[in-house]
Each structure stands twice: as C-alpha cells, then as structure tokens.
C-alpha cells in the first residue's frame, strides 16, 4: 500500500468520527486532536476503523503515534511491512 493510499484510508477513518472534517485546513503534521473536536470514544472508533481496514493489531501504547495524519501514515506503513515491530 502506498503512502497516498494509506493517507486516504486514515482520512476516511477520521471522517467517520469527525463528519465536520475539512481535509484542506487540517495540518497533517500536527495532532488532529487539537484541531478537531475528538473525544476518547471518537479516537477509539478511529483506531477500530484502521484496525478493521488493515487487519493489523494496534497496541494501545502506540496510540500516540496515530494522533496526526503524517504520524499515522508512517506508523501504519511500518506495521504493514513488519507487523511484529512497533
């Protein structure tokens, strides 16, 4: 999966919990938790959407790496290449 495809997937997962999401105004390198009104239930549902789309386990301790678009794309790309490494 290319980075562009991963980015699409991450944005779609995020749009599922934040319908007001405006992709153009979202800074990809900054935490979207500061940019969108996302609570812990929304974040859990976002992680579940990523888990279901990619069929990979995501330990809770790795959640901080999923809080920006760029961070999530980098992390998920790495997990897809070597699922056991963090």
């Amino acid at each position: 999966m290319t980075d562009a495809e991963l980015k699409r997937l991450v944005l779609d997962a995020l749009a599922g919990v934040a319908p007001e999401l405006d992709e153009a105004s979202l800074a990809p390198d900054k935490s979207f938790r500061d940019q969108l009104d996302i609570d812990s239930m929304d974040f859990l549902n976002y992680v579940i959407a990523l888990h279901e789309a990619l069929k990979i386990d995501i330990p809770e301790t790795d959640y901080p790496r999923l809080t920006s678009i760029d961070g999530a794309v980098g992390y998920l790309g790495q997990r897809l290449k070597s699922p056991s490494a963090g």
Partner: protein
Amino acid sequence: MPSLGADMEAGTLVEWLKKPGDRVVRGDIIAVVETQKGAIEIEVFQTGTIETLLAATGQKIAVGAPMAFIRAEGERAPAPSAPGPAPSPVTVAPKAAAELPRVAPLVPGGGVRVSPAARRRAAELGVKVETLSGSGPGGSVTLADVEGAARAAVPSPAQAMRDVIAAAMARSNREIPHYYLGHTLDLEPALTWLAAENAKRPVPERMLYGALLIKAVARALREHPDFNGFWLDGEFRPSQRIHLGIAISLSQGGLIAPAIHDTDRLSVPEVMAALRDLVKRARKGGLRSSELSDPTITVTSLGEQGTEAVFPVIYPPQVAIVGFGMVLERPWVVAGAILPRRVIVGSLAGDHRVSDGHRGARFVTAIGRELQKPQAL
C-alpha cells in the same frame, strides 16, 4: 406522548411502526417522534393489541396526550350498540394532558377572520392566529398563512437544543437548592488495571476509563440511595433501580444525557459496550424514549481535553449529578513517599431538599473507594 425530559412540551410524529390490529408487548418500539433532542424511538408502555391510532404523521402531540388506543389482554371489544369498557389510552403524564395548544376564540367584528382549515392547522402547529395578518379574501387568515408563520417560527436544530438545555437548567437553578463537593481521587490502580486488561483485548473490545467511572458510581449508589431517584410533587421518590444518565456532547453543539439501564448490574465490559452504543445512537439518531425519560442520576466526564474539575447542574427531576474532570498527573504522597500519580477530581452536585454535604461526602468517597479495586468492579 411520553415526557422525554423535564423541559419537553410536545413531539411531532414522524412515523408509526405499528398499525391497528398489531399485537404489541411493553417495550416494543411503536413510533418515531421528532423532538428538540432529535428523532426518538417511542416504546409502548402496555401489552395488548392496537385498536386505533389517534395521531397522524406530521402531527404535533403534547406530552401526556394519547397517541393510540391499546386493548389489553382479555379486555372486550365494544359492542356496536352498547360500548363496553373503554380501551386504555396510551398516556404517560396525565397531568400534562390538558396542555394542548389552544387558539383564542374569534371575537365577532373585532378579531381576525380565519378559515376553519387554517384554524385547525394553527391549533396543531401552536400558531397564534390573532397575531397573523391574513392574505385571504377580506384579510382572512388562510392555511398557507398559518403554515408560513409556523415555518418562520421554527428555530434551527442547534438553537432548539440550546433552548431545551436552557429551559431545563434555568428550572434547575430556580428550584433546586444545590450544594457542591469535590474530591481528588487516585486513579492509578484503575488505569494500571485497564492498560493490562486492554493489552489482552483486540482493538474493538478495548475499554475506556469512563466505563470504570460509570461502574464505580453505580456501585456506590447502592449504599447511598439518597442520590438515586426523583423529586416529584414535593417529595423525594428514591428509585430501586439504578439507571445512570450519561452526558454526551454532540458535534453540532449541545448535549444529551440518556440512560444506561441497570448500570450497577452490568460488568465493566458490558458498561463499555452500552456506552459505545449509546454514544453512537446519541450522535447518529435512534435513542429510545425510556433512555431519555428514566435516568435516575447523571454522570458527566469532561475527558482528556477538559479542565481539572466540573461543577455540574442537576437535571430535574433528578436530585444529584456526579462530575469528573480530566485525568491529571500529580505528585502524590503514598506511604510517606512522593510519587507521580494519575488522579481525577470527582465532584457532586446534590439537592439540599433530599441530602446534605455530610452524606454527599460519604457518597463521593465511596466512589473513590470503588475505584481502588478495579478488578472487583
């Protein structure tokens, strides 16, 4: 029409899900009603057979007004010539039944002229015809005038919800003599237990600490019944069952606090599943009438982007509300040593007509005690 909150006056029928002749069992969803809180599924309160539907789609129905006649098991149908016992109307709050919108009678000569159809529609929509200027013959008010006025008077959904919250909170501050307590609770054992538990669980089955807070409050309530129930007709009516209302903020603004039924009897994973389902339905539609009408106490948690503490306002006719601030990492003294520790400020707003600060303090500390043994929750 059941009351879906202290502040609700009427609902608009969107859809009947049952028809005359259908058998219904208490708890079945029989209709969908639009309120300021969104579209709500209405559950029937009685088992029997639907005899007549009294409300039409699109009609505004006052709280307490009958929506349908249901013939109970064994109740005889009326003979055509000699009516038998009347079937029971489905009604919840009879004292509000008389509050149907009314239109002032016309004063011959001095008042406005209104067509009969326009007058009927005005009554349904709650439009005051005497305030309208008519566009019909001789300045008479027509059906179109009434419907136009009703459309112009409808606030946006966000404003409608804000109005509902304001009405309930104004009533609360007017009628309930609140007292407030706050206490910092050690959350380290609960969060440590939760992290270990979640490490064993696949992503979709992981839990949030909110589920532990909810369960801890529900368990503490068993020993502190003064905080679980309703103030009705000048007296406190404690509830045997514990239905925690959960304050859920909505993306378009505003909030709603539907109940998780029998919260104290659910395991923590069951509370988590109920919470996920409730948040989803609160935000996307599909809350049920009982979830809005019967919370016996409310819990509000500000979450990770909140402040240290919240001083919540009781939702009438309830008599208490428990609040939680955000999780804080603080220096904490444990067995004589200072350690970094994750804590949370739990707060209580209580109703002085029912309890006082002494018993409130015992309730808040009981919640803290429950959180110290998360495996037992």
